[in-house]
Structures are given as structure tokens and as C-alpha cells.
């Protein structure tokens, strides 16, 4: 009966057609979390910090060449969720993940799976730009070096240049590649971090509030960049700004207190949410 309701509501496009939204008490996901040809799939994912359950039974797909935005009030588990996708939660003591997450059909929590290779395929950009205290060049070259992606200096130079170009930073830094990365402006540092992630040719890039420490100009540049990167990568972006989510993403997932409340096409979620909680959030009634 619940299932039917979800199916039914996905089909609706026009706001005028919705007579009744799903009630606040319903903690099941509404909308369609699945896509036809997914790059990553998550099924019944739970995350525990010690005894605390921070993510509750979340199922969600990440499609190819799409930007999917995670929104929700602070502490609802957005960061926790995307950190599952490249197993960054492994580095946190006491953090446990259950359920199944696959990348290209392969379970990434398989005991035989190599985390090193996984993280090369699923890159990550953090809230605060965190360039290494090395030169710009070395920041980019670091990933390819540890993965042994290139075998000559010339190839490495080329890779660095391409990565910086893709991140839209090449023109600004090409004359000072050997100066410290920490000397760049905040927005440039964040693009440097994006270039650093790109350099190991990932398939998916996770971004956890990548613009929250940046000014509006730098934010606009990064948003344009994200839109371009979609041609080559799947991007999962956590954001606090609903404008940003609607500008850059194709699909949006709304989290609340560890539950995935609603997933849908971005235009639909923002104009015609199916769940009362989603509506509360996007109309600014909480969070």
C-alpha cells in the first residue's frame, strides 16, 4: 500500500496535481531512489557510531553523469552517508556500516576489496579546502604517484596540466606550479583539491559542502565547474544551500535524522515536494 503510494507519486509532475503530501510521521523514502543504469547502488545502508544509529536503512542509486545533491538539516547524516561511498568512515574509530554498497556492480564493503583502489575510483572533496603543505604541482602529482599511474616525468607533467585544466585552475597557476598550494586563495585551493581528486581518474566525486567556506564569486566558479565535470564523472554533493542544489544537481535527496525522506528530480523536489518534511525544509520552516 505504501509502495503503491510511492510509485504513484513519482509520476506526478505538476504541483497543481498534488492534493495531499505524505505525512510527517512517515519515515519511509518517498520518490524513486533508483535509476536505470546506476554507477553506485546503496541498499539498506545503516551506519552506527558506537550505539548511535546515524543512518537508517537508506537505499539510493547514483546514476552516470549526474549530479545528485544531498540536502537536509545539520546532523541529519549527509556527511556520514557520503563518507560511506568511499569508505572514509573506516578511519573513524567505532564507526560501523551495514548493508550493501556497490560500485559498478562490485560490493565495496567486500572483505577482498582494496580500499586504496576504491578511493582512487571514488574521489572526495571536503568542506574546508585542505591542500597538502606542498607545492601546487606536488599536490596534484601526489595521487598519481602513490597509485603508480604514470611512469615518466613528462607523463606526470601532462597529467598535472590536464587535471588543472579540467578544474579550471590552469591559467591561474601555470606560472607558479612550484609555489606552495596553501598560498592560493580559498576558492583556488578548493579547485586545487578538485584537481587533485581528478588526477587519479575517479568515476565518482564526492563533495561535502565544497563551497561553504567560499565567497559567492568563488562559489559560482565552482558551481560552473561541477556542471562541466558531470560530463566525465558522477558527482555526489552535500550542500546547505538550496539554490546551489537546484543550480547544479539533476536529482536531490533529502535526509532527516538519519532517514532518507525523499528522492526525486531536483526540479520536482524543489517545486513540488511529496513529503511534508521536505516541504518544511525547502520552505525554511526548520533546519
Amino acid at each position, binding site marked *: 500500500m505504501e509502495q503503491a503510494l510511492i510509485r504513484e507519486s513519482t509520476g506526478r509532475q505538476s504541483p497543481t496535481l498534488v492534493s495531499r503530501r505524505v505525512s510527517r510521521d512517515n519515515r519511509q523514502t518517498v520518490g524513486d531512489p533508483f535509476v536505470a543504469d546506476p554507477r553506485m547502488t546503496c541498499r539498506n545502508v545503516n551506519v552506527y557510531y558506537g550505539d548511535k544509529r546515524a543512518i537508517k536503512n537508506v537505499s539510493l542509486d547514483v546514476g552516470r553523469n549526474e549530479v545528485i545533491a544531498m540536502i537536509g538539516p545539520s546532523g541529519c547524516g549527509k556527511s556520514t552517508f557520503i563518507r560511506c561511498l*568511499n569508505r*572514509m568512515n573506516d*578511519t573513524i*574509530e567505532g564507526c560501523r556500516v551495514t548493508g550493501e554498497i556497490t560500485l559498478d556492480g562490485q560490493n565495496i564493503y567486500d572483505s577482498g576489496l582494496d*580500499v*586504496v*583502489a*576504491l*578511493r*582512487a575510483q571514488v*574521489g*572526495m572533496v*571536503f568542506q*574546508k579546502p*585542505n*591542500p*597538502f*603543505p*606542498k607545492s601546487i604541482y606536488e599536490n596534484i602529482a*601526489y*595521487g598519481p604517484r*602513490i*597509485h603508480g599511474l604514470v611512469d615518466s616525468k613528462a607523463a606526470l607533467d601532462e597529467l598535472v596540466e590536464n587535471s588543472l585544466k579540467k578544474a579550471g585552475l590552469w591559467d591561474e597557476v601555470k606560472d607558479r606550479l612550484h609555489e606552495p598550494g*596553501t598560498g592560493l586563495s580559498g576558492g583556488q585551493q578548493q579547485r586545487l*583539491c578538485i584537481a*587533485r*581528486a581528478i588526477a*587519479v581518474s575517479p568515476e565518482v566525486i564526492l563533495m561535502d559542502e565544497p563551497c561553504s567556506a567560499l565567497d559567492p564569486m568563488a562559489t559560482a566558479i565552482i558551481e560552473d565547474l561541477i556542471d562541466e565535470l558531470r560530463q566525465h564523472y558522477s558527482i555526489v554533493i552535500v550542500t546547505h544551500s538550496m539554490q546551489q542544489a537546484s543550480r547544479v544537481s539533476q536529482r536531490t535527496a533529502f535526509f532527516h535524522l538519519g532517514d532518507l525522506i525523499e528522492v526525486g528530480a531536483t526540479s520536482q523536489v524543489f517545486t513540488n515536494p511529496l513529503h511534508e518534511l521536505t516541504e518544511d525544509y525547502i520552505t525554511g520552516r526548520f533546519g
Partner: protein
Amino acid sequence: MEPQLLLCFLLLLSTAGYMIGKRQALAVGRSARGIRSLHSRPAYHGALTALWCAVPAALIFALWLGLDSNIIIRQVLAEMPASFRELPPSEQNLLVNEIKNLVNGNVFTNEVDPVLNAAAERYIRYRSISHGALTVICLSLGLVGILAVKRRISINLRARNQVERIITGVLIACSCIAILTTVGIVLSVLYESILFFRQVPLNSFLFGLEWSPQMAIRADQVGSSGAFGAVPVFWGTLMVSAIAMFVAVPIGLMSAIYLSEYANRRFRDVVKPLLEILAGIPTVVYGFFAALVLAPVVRNTGNSLGLDVSSESALAAGLVMGIMIIPFISSLSDDVINAVPQSLRDGAYALGATHSETIRQVVLPAALPGIVGSVLLAVSRAIGETMIVVMAAGLAANLTLNPLKTVTTVTVQIVTLLIGDQEFDSPKTLAAFALGLVLFVVTLCLNVIALYVVRKYREQYE
């Protein structure tokens, strides 16, 4: 009145001053437009009164006690018979000691020279006069202070500001004492060193290759010419410190890495304090350990390998010193490594770096300046270390590369030069000050560099 008692009275008086000032302020406030109209709260008026009561009196008290025994002694000597007054200075010193012993009741013989006895009695009389005068002056100064402030109390008296200013002054005075002491030490060492360099040329001290400070004390002694080339001594210090750092840097650094990056909370909470206990062991105990346990082990091991090991080898001293220094390096480095932001580690992990790659290629380079700082601090600690080397390193100043041989260090030489009977103006004694001066300059430079490096590191992340 005895000085101790006087001090208690002063304390009581200033407490009374506090009450009086506070009461007066309350009274003034009430008779004006209420207590709120006072510029400062009554407690500040009380504190101001107490300070004006205590501080000037305490200053006079300290000055007086610092000077009075000298003045009294001079007076007592001046009143002694001429035969005593015309003694040479060194014997006069003995005389003064004897008088003081009599005064304090430390009499070891039955028959005491009546002249000395008379002098001692005079000393006691003068002293009680002096203490009486001190009592009168201090107490009246305290009273005057209280009365003067009490008269000044009005609603406009800026007591709070004045109290703050006096407190600032007291704090400055305390820190000046530390600074002035340091300056005093440096100046006295400098002075003695200059005396030394009058007798031994500077470059033969700094660059001379032979160290044998035994001088002929009497003209008829033989075989001791005195050579003051400091190179072998500094070489010994360098070698022992180098061995110590060779032990301490890898062990300290690796335990710091383990503690901060791998160990779980429980282990860390137990082990870190334990490591720091190492730093709390008195160095003389380490010296013991070096001389009685490690040195024989080193020698026996060496001998069984067919090596010629002296019983007081640079190796044994250096090894033990290294163990002593481990906690300095591990504790400081651990703090520095912990200060590297987690976001840098996350950045490396997210690129697929393993734990050890992250540590080696990201965390350690980021922490390097701080680690260098901690190592430099440890080096200056090693260079200045005395007890271990006194007990475990030898006395022979060998200019050798062989760590199994006996060497001696700067601090050991300073100690041996200064114990025993000798004149204070012989080059042998003065050489200790010259060595101390050079040692001081070296460690000072190291500390300055270390602080500079550490500060530079701080700028990066805060």
C-alpha cells in the same frame, strides 16, 4: 622585634588597612549619593589601602635585611683592636666567620679569645638595635600608608585603576627578577672568562687541541704545565650528544608516531604518562645506571667481540643520555603531530593513500618544523647534561673518533675544575667559566633557533 614576627605584624596591619579602607569607602559612599556613586567598588579602596600599607614597608624590610649584616660587621671590625683591623683580607674573612659562629652559638672550643667574645656581643647588640629600628620604621610606614590613603578616599578616587597599576608593577618586578638573575649570571661568567682570557689567549683556547688543566700550584711541582685547548672537550660533548641523539631521535620519533597515529585511546592514556615519567627520573639515577649497569655491559660485550673498550666509554654515557632524552622528543613530537589538522589526513586517505603513506608523506612533512624544534631543544638538553656524564664518561680529554674510548665533556670538566682546593684566580679555575660561557652561547643559539622554528610552524595552522 624579630624580623619574622615583624612580617606577621605587617600582614596583620595591611589586613586592618584593607578593612579600614573598605569601611571608609562605604561611609563616603553612603554619605554621598549611595554606594553606586563611588568610582570604584569599596573592595578596591580596601585593596589600595592595604597595598600602600604593605608594599613600601616590605621594600624597606627587604633592603634593610639585605644590607644590615654587612654594615654591622664593618662597624664591629672597626671597633676591634688595631692588630685585628690590619690583618690581610683573607684572614679578616676567617675572623668574621668566627664572630658569626659565636653569635649563632656554634662554639667548638672552650677557650674563646676574649676580644672575639666582645666583638660577638657587640654584634648582637648592634643587631638588636637594627631590628628595633626596622620595626619602628616599617610599622610607622605602614600606618602612614593607611592614613594617607584613608584621607584620600572620596567618591572620585580611582582606586581600581591604581590597584591595577600597582599589581602590574608587582608582576613586572617579579619577571624582572628572573631576567636580572639571568643577566647577572651571564655577566659574572663573562667577567671570570675575561680574567681567564687575560692569561690564556682566546684562540689557543678555542682552537687548541690539547686539554690538561693541571697547573703547578707551587713552583716546585713538576709535570703539569697546563694546556687549555678546548677542542677535545667540546669534541667529547659533541660525540656523547651525537650518540644520545642517535638513540633518542629515532626511538622518540617513532614512539610519538605510534602514540599519536596508531595507538588506541586506552593504550595512549597509559603509555604517554609512563614515557613522561622517564623525564622525571633524576639524572643522577641515570648516571648510576650508566656507570654501574650499562658501562660493564658495553665493555663485556666489546671485549667478547675482541674490541678494546674502556670502562668509561662515550658509548655508555651517550646511550643512557639518549634514553633520558627520549621523552622530550616523543612528548613534544606527539603534540606536534596531533596538531596537524585531521583534514590533511582525510585529504590523503581520500586519494587512496595508506595509513603509513599518509604519515610519511603528509603528516610528517607538515609536522617537520615542530619536530625539528623538539629535536633542537633535546640537543641543547643533551649538551648541558651534567650528572650522567660526570658519572659515566671519563676525565681524559681524548680527541678520538672511537666511541669505545673514554672522552670527557664540557660539563664534566667544569665540575672537576671547580671541586677541590685551588685558588680562585688560577687559570685552572677560571677555565671553568670560559667553558661555561661557550657552552651557554651554544645552547642559547640552539634554543633560539628551536623557538624560531617552532614559532614559524605555529603560524601555518593557526
